[in-house]
């Protein structure tokens, strides 16, 4: 009995005129997106490698280790083909130097603004927007359409149980929509393999999980379609309702969640943070120059009453001592500033995390948000992409700074610079310069943070769970509604 009903649902979908059109559209979209994604990925790999080479050459050509301006680059991942996520929005590189904080700049979209306008169509977008719409298109009249047609009455003049009927309806619709969908997906994966993109086993796990996630997501829309068609009598009404649900679920609720969180937890902008940091820095340097001038006044007082020769002798005698004292004071200022920057940054990032969590949790009233968040998590193009890179770049910066200081010391330089404060010439900085190219063979190399599929899967567990809960709710609702459905 069940198989008769399932077969009929399958046949009904496959024979319907809208099926061929939607199947064609989906297939073409998925294949094009994978194809373009692969090209985009390959281009970004070429760019990544070229930029790394250039950065390397720049480092080699620097005249001293203190002069080196190193750059760390964000590494493209094959997963961005399927879920571009924040890939196009996060900067591609950051300068690595002792006195500047790590900051990712030059995102792909900031370099090529044209593409930012309509944004990249990836697999996740197609599933999120196009396939969910198709799922609704195939289910909005699943129950009430059969009532309107009169086929429901004829079917139920036979010994058919309602539970069986609805279960078959779901199974048939699911198979009819999902199986054809797997065809372009598999072709897309084949394309990925043939194009020679290096896909690690961890990536494969992520891709598999992404496909499973997409199936869950579409299942939810099949469920909501069934549910709405089982609580309404007219398919025109259920279509309208579903359209409203789709628009709010896909386009509005996720944004509302994020906007609401923005209103509820206010955090300072990057500009505000930087202004705060700069203000501290300025104040600290002002303190420092006041301190220095006091010190010098004290030193001058010590020399009061001496004649010119005595003064010179005294100065020569004290020079290194004074220099060390001044240097220590300067270093204190610098470490204070770095410490303060770190503290402010951490504070702001903690606040940001609170805001993010709130935003995501609010957005999660729509399962669309769960899909999106989990998809980006799986692909590693999630909100933490920037943080992950900045953290690993900061660690690298520390290694790098340590290394350059060691090198600088080895090359016979104090590693600092000499500051002379002169009433005529003002402050004068003096670096110890030398003119050979640098041997970078021992220099630590930056390597991108690796996120294993296990971790990303763990991070997406909540969203997988939520999707499943939503699916169960829609199916439970459909069954309850259909058990009481008036067939006439």
């Amino acid at each position: 009995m069940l198989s008769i009903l399932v077969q009929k649902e399958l046949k009904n979908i496959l024979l319907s005129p809208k099926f061929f059109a939607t199947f064609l559209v989906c297939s073409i979209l998925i294949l094009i997106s994978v194809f373009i994604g692969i090209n985009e990925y390959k281009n970004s790999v070429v760019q990544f490698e070229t930029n790394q080479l250039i950065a390397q050459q720049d480092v080699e050509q620097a005249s001293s280790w203190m002069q080196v301006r190193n750059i760390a680059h964000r590494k493209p991942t094959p997963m961005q083909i399927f879920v571009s996520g924040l890939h196009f929005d996060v900067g591609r590189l950051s300068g690595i130097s002792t006195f500047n904080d790590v900051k990712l700049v030059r995102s792909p979209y900031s370099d090529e603004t044209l593409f930012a306008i309509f944004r990249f169509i990836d697999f996740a977008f197609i599933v999120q927007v196009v396939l969910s719409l198709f799922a609704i298109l195939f289910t909005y009249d699943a129950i009430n359409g059969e009532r309107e047609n009169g086929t429901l009455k004829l079917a139920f003049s036979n010994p058919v149980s309602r539970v069986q009927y609805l279960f078959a309806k779901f199974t048939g619709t699911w198979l009819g929509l999902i199986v054809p969908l797997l065809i372009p997906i598999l072709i897309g994966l084949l394309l990925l393999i043939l194009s020679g993109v290096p896909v690690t086993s961890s990536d494969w796990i992520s891709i598999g999980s992404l496909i499973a996630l997409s199936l869950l997501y579409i299942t939810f829309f099949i469920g909501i379609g069934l549910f709405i068609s089982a609580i309404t009598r007219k398919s025109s009404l259920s279509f309208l309702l579903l359209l409203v649900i789709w628009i709010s679920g896909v386009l509005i609720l996720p944004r509302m969640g994020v906007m609401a969180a923005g209103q509820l937890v206010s955090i300072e902008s990057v500009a505000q943070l930087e202004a705060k940091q700069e203000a501290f820095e300025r104040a600290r340097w002002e303190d420092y120059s006041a301190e220095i001038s006091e010190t010098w006044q004290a030193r001058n007082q010590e020399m009061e009453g001496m004649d010119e020769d005595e003064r010179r002798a005294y100065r020569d005698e004290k020079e290194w001592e004074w220099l060390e004292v001044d240097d220590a004071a300067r270093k204190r200022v610098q470490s204070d500033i770095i410490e303060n920057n770190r503290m402010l940054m951490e504070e702001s990032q903690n606040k940001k995390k609170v805001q993010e969590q709130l935003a995501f949790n609010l957005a999660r009233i729509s399962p669309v948000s769960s899909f999106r968040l989990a998809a980006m998590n799986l692909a590693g193009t999630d909100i933490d992409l920037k943080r992950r890179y900045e953290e690993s770049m900061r660690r690298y910066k520390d290694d790098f700074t340590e290394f350059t200081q060691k090198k600088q010391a080895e090359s016979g330089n104090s590693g600092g610079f000499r500051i002379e404060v002169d009433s005529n010439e003002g402050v004068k900085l003096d670096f110890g310069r030398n003119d050979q190219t640098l041997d970078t063979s021992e220099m630590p190399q930056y390597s991108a943070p690796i996120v294993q599929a296990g971790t990303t899967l763990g991070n997406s567990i909540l969203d997988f769970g939520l999707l499943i809960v939503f699916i169960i709710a829609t199916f439970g609702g459909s069954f309850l509604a259909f058990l009481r459905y008036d067939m006439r």
Partner: protein
Amino acid sequence: MNNETIKQAPLLEARNLTKVYEDGVKALDNLQLRVHPGEIFAMLGGNGAGKTTTINLFLDFIQPTSGHAFINGIDANADPLEAKKNVAFVSENVQLYPNFTAMQNVDFFVRLGGRHQYKRSDYEAALVRVGLQREAFDKKLKDFSKGMRQKCGIAIAILKDAPAILLDEPTSGLDPKAGKEFTRLVGDLRDEGKAILMSTHDIFRAKEISDHVGILNGGVLVAQKTNAELKGVNLEQLYVEYMAGYMEETLETGPLTNNLT
């Protein structure tokens, strides 16, 4: 014939069947009727008389307010799945899946009815029997006329081969020729031993083939006559008079409902 059939158990039976809709409309009031194997019971009545309500109660599409509808002795509302094994149904406007061909539709509904043994040739034979043109067998239903759809509907009922058949105004909207053919087919099914409950507006055809005629008015079975009792009676006049509601006392025989209980 009457004596003989009464001994047999009725295949379709309404016992004190009453339906009051949620909005308070009393669509059926204490209906009593029995249809035995080899009988056609024609329910006559205007729009809103309660004919479709009766048939919906037999099919468990609605629940009775009180009373019972039995199919082959099984309470249709207590054990609908078992009851529906014993009944085939043709609605006043048979609707099938528009994207399926006649064959595919027949195949689906017949197998849903629990008949898996048929081959294509059996389906063809049934469709030929109901008078569907061969060219239409593999055409999609969306191009079918109402008459063609009714033919598919009766073919499905024939193939289900259930002992009882419910027909809800099956000939309304058909042209006279198609209506006549349909009626002849129903008569044949009766002759094969089916118990048939048919609602209709068509007084003449009802009189022509029915074993019993019941007149339903406002949910009340105001008259019930056997074919023998109708010999020489102007059924049209009787119908109109009953519908007007003033013949009950003057007609000697009175509603046959009393004889049944």
